[in-house]
C-alpha cells in the first residue's frame, strides 16, 4: 500500500453537503414495522442530485444532497452508515446515516484519481473499498478508506485491469471481486471511451488484505468488446455478472454470466428474444438469495428479467420504461426507473413527483 494523501475534505465542505430532508417521526414508526428500506441515488427534476432512503412502499424516508450525480450506494450494518459514490468520472463519495444520527461526510478522491461509482465495506465496517481510476496511467485501482478515521484514504491496490466498475466483497470476507469493464477513459475527454478497438475486460479476485491478485478471468477474444460491469452474489456464493457490448449493435452476444472460484467465466444462454430485448446493455444485477433468483435490468431495452439461479432459466421479463435499479423485496424485486417510477414486486407503481432514480438500488434490512 502506498499513496501520500492530500485531504480535500475542507474544500468539499465549503462546496456544501447537508441534510436535505429530515425524517418525520411518524414515517419512521411505520417503517420500523417493515422488512427493509432501500437506498438509491437520484436526480431532482430541478437538476440537482442526491441520495435517498425509501421505504418499501416507496416513501422517501431520508435524503442527502450530493454535489453532482451519484451512482451506487453501499451500506455498513455495523455503523448503520451508507456511502454513496459519485458517478464516473466523479470525485467524491458521501457517507450518511439514514437514521440521522450523524452528519453526512463528504470525501474527495485524491488528485489523479476519480471514482467509478461503486464500492464496498469490509464485514467489520472498518474499511471502505472503492473502484477508482488512475487515469494518467489508465490503470484501475481500489482505494482503501479508514471508516474509523473519518474515511481517511490509507492506501490503494490495483484492480489488474482498465476501467473497473462494480466491486463485491465475497462471502469469505477477504476476497474482493472486481469487474474490470476494460474501457479506458480520461477526464480530459469527458466520458469518451478511448480504447474500444482494443479493450479487454476482465473479472479479477483480489485479496483485500495483501492487494494480491488471486484469479483473473477474461472472456474469449471474440468477446473482447463485452464490458463486464455489474455483479451480485446468489445464495450459493456464485457471482452473477451483467455486461454491456461496445461492438456493433448488429452483434448481440450473451450478456449475463456466472463466475465461480477457480473456474472460467460462463455466459448464460438466453432465449433470443429476451437477449435481443436488452439492446446489448445490462444496467444492473441483483440477486434475491431467499427466492433463489437473480434479476438483470436493461434501461436501454426498457425491460428487466428474473432468472432462476439454480437452473439459469429466465422465469419472467417485465417491460418497464428506463428500468435500471433493482433490489430484492420479499420473493421478488423492487425496481426503479430513470423516469421516476418505483415498482413493487406485485407491479404496484409509485412515484415521488420531483425525483427520478439513478441506476442502482440497495436493500437495507431494517434490523440493520
Amino acid at each position, binding site marked *: 500500500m502506498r499513496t501520500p494523501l492530500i485531504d480535500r475534505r475542507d474544500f468539499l465542505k465549503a462546496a456544501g453537503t447537508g441534510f436535505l430532508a429530515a425524517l418525520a417521526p411518524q414515517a419512521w414508526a411505520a417503517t420500523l414495522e417493515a422488512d427493509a428500506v432501500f437506498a438509491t441515488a437520484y436526480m431532482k427534476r430541478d437538476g440537482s442530485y442526491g441520495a435517498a432512503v425509501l421505504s418499501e412502499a416507496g416513501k422517501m424516508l431520508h435524503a442527502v444532497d450530493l454535489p453532482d*450525480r451519484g*451512482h451506487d450506494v453501499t451500506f455498513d450494518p455495523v455503523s448503520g452508515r451508507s456511502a454513496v459514490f459519485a458517478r464516473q468520472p466523479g470525485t467524491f463519495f458521501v457517507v450518511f446515516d439514514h437514521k440521522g444520527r450523524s452528519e453526512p461526510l463528504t470525501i474527495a478522491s485524491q488528485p489523479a484519481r476519480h471514482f467509478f461509482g461503486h464500492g464496498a465495506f469490509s464485514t467489520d465496517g472498518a474499511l471502505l473499498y472503492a473502484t477508482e481510476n488512475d487515469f494518467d496511467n489508465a490503470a484501475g485501482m481500489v482505494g482503501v478508506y479508514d471508516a474509523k478515521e473519518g474515511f481517511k484514504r490509507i492506501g490503494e491496490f490495483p484492480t489488474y485491469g482498465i476501467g473497473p*466498475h462494480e466491486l463485491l466483497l465475497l462471502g469469505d470476507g477477504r476476497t474482493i471481486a472486481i469487474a474490470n469493464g476494460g474501457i479506458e477513459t480520461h477526464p480530459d475527454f469527458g466520458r469518451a471511451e478511448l480504447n474500444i478497438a482494443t479493450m479487454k475486460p476482465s473479472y479479477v479476485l483480489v485479496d483485500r488484505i495483501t492487494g494480491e491478485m488471486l484469479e483473473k478471468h477474461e472472456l474469449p477474444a471474440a468477446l473482447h468488446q463485452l464490458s463486464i460491469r455489474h455483479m451480485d452474489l446468489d445464495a450459493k456464493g456464485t457471482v452473477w455478472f451483467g455486461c454491456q457490448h461496445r461492438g456493433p449493435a*448488429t452483434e448481440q452476444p450473451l450478456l449475463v454470466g456466472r463466475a465461480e472460484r477457480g473456474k472460467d467465466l460462463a455466459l448464460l444462454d438466453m432465449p433470443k428474444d429476451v437477449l435481443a430485448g436488452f439492446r446489448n446493455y445490462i444496467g444492473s444485477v441483483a440477486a434475491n438469495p431467499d427466492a433463489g433468483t437473480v434479476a438483470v435490468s436493461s*434501461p*436501454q431495452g426498457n425491460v428487466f428479467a428474473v432468472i432462476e439461479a439454480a437452473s439459469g432459466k429466465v422465469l419472467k421479463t417485465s417491460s418497464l*420504461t*428506463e428500468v435500471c435499479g433493482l433490489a430484492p423485496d420479499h420473493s421478488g424485486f423492487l425496481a426503479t426507473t430513470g423516469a421516476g417510477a418505483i415498482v413493487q414486486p406485485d407491479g404496484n407503481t409509485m412515484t415521488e413527483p420531483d425525483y427520478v432514480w439513478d441506476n442502482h438500488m440497495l436493500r437495507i434490512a431494517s434490523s440493520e
Partner: protein
Amino acid sequence: MLKHLSRFRKSVARFCDENLRQNKLAAALVVPFALAISQPAGAAVQASDVVKSAVDGFIRPAYASLQQHAAATAKAVEALCAAPSQQALDAARTEFAGAVTAWSAIEIVRFGPITENNRLERMLYWPDRKGLGLKQVQAALAEKDVSATDAAGIAGKSIAMQGLGALEFVLHGTDAEMLAGKDGAYRCSFGSAIAGNIETIATDVSTAWAKPDGFAALWASPGPDNPLYRDGSEAVTELMGVFINGLELVRDQRLKNFLGANADAAKPKQAIYWRSGLTGASLAANLDGMNRLFQASNLGDALPKDDRWIADSIEIQLVNGVAAAKEASGSVAEVLADPKRRAALEHFQLITSSLSNLFGTRLSAAFGLTAGFSSLDGD
C-alpha cells in the same frame, strides 16, 4: 443541467409502429399522440420517412463525398511520390484537407457500418492520449518499415497508425518538408499506403450504406421483428442521438480539451488536427454535417405548429456555429493567441451548449422522447 441533458436515451412515448401502419392515426410520428390525433391524418409523419430522408438526403451522399475525397487524397499522395515537388506536396495537403472536412461532416454518425471492423477508430484514432499513434508513425519512419508501404499492410497494423491522424503527421508533422524532394521517398510511400487504407475504409462504409437491403433498410423499417429498431420511436431516437451525442463530442472532447478556461490554460497541441491547421475547419464541418442532416431529415416538419420555433432556433444556431468555427480556422496556436478568434471558439462552445438544450430537451420533449436519466452510456 447540460450534462444530463446530453445523456440522451430512450423514449417514453413511441413513434409509429410499423405493424400499425394501416391505422393512420396510430402511425403518426408526431407525439404526443393526442396532438397527432387532433390533426388531419395527412399531417402525420412516418418515422420511416424521416429515416429514409436522413439516409438519402445526408448519410449516403456524405459517405459518397468522403469516399471521393479519400480517393482524391490517395491519388494526390501517389502523384507526390511519383514526382516530388513543393507543388505536388501542396496539392496533397489540399486534398487531405478535403478528406478531413468530408470526414468531419459524416463522423457524427457513430452507428451502423462505421462501427464494424473498428472502422471508426481506424479512420481516426483520436484522442491519442498517450501519443501511441505518433510513436508508431515515427518508428515506421525511422525504421523505414517496408510493410507499412502498402494499404493492405497498413490495415493489418495498429489502429493508431492507420487513419487521418497518421496521414496528417506524414504530410504536416516534423520533417514533412522532405516530401517535396527525393529524401522523402519512404515517408511518401508510407503516406500513400495510409491514404490508400483510408480510401478502402471509406469505400467499404459508403458501399454498405448504399446497399438497398443493408443497414439503411434495417433502420428504415422498424418493427417487432427488427433486431435493432422495434418501433419508429427507437429508429428516430437513433437519429436524435446523432445530434445529442455529436454535440457532446464536439464540445466536451474536441473543443474543451484544448480551449481551456482562459488563454493561459489553452493547450493548442491537444487540439485535433493542430498540425495541419484544420481544427476550426473540422469543428465547422461537424456542425455543418448536423445542419445538413437536420435539413435532410425534415425533423422540423414533424413538429406541431406551436413547436416549430424549436426547429427554427436549431437551424439558426447550427449556421451560427459553423460561422463561429470558421472564424477560428487556421493555426490553432494563433487562433488561441488572438483574443478575437479565441472569442469565436468560446462563442462556438456556447452555441453547442444551446443546441444540446434544443435537441436534448426541447425537441425531444416535443416528440415525446425523454432525455433519459437512468439509462446512460457506460454505467
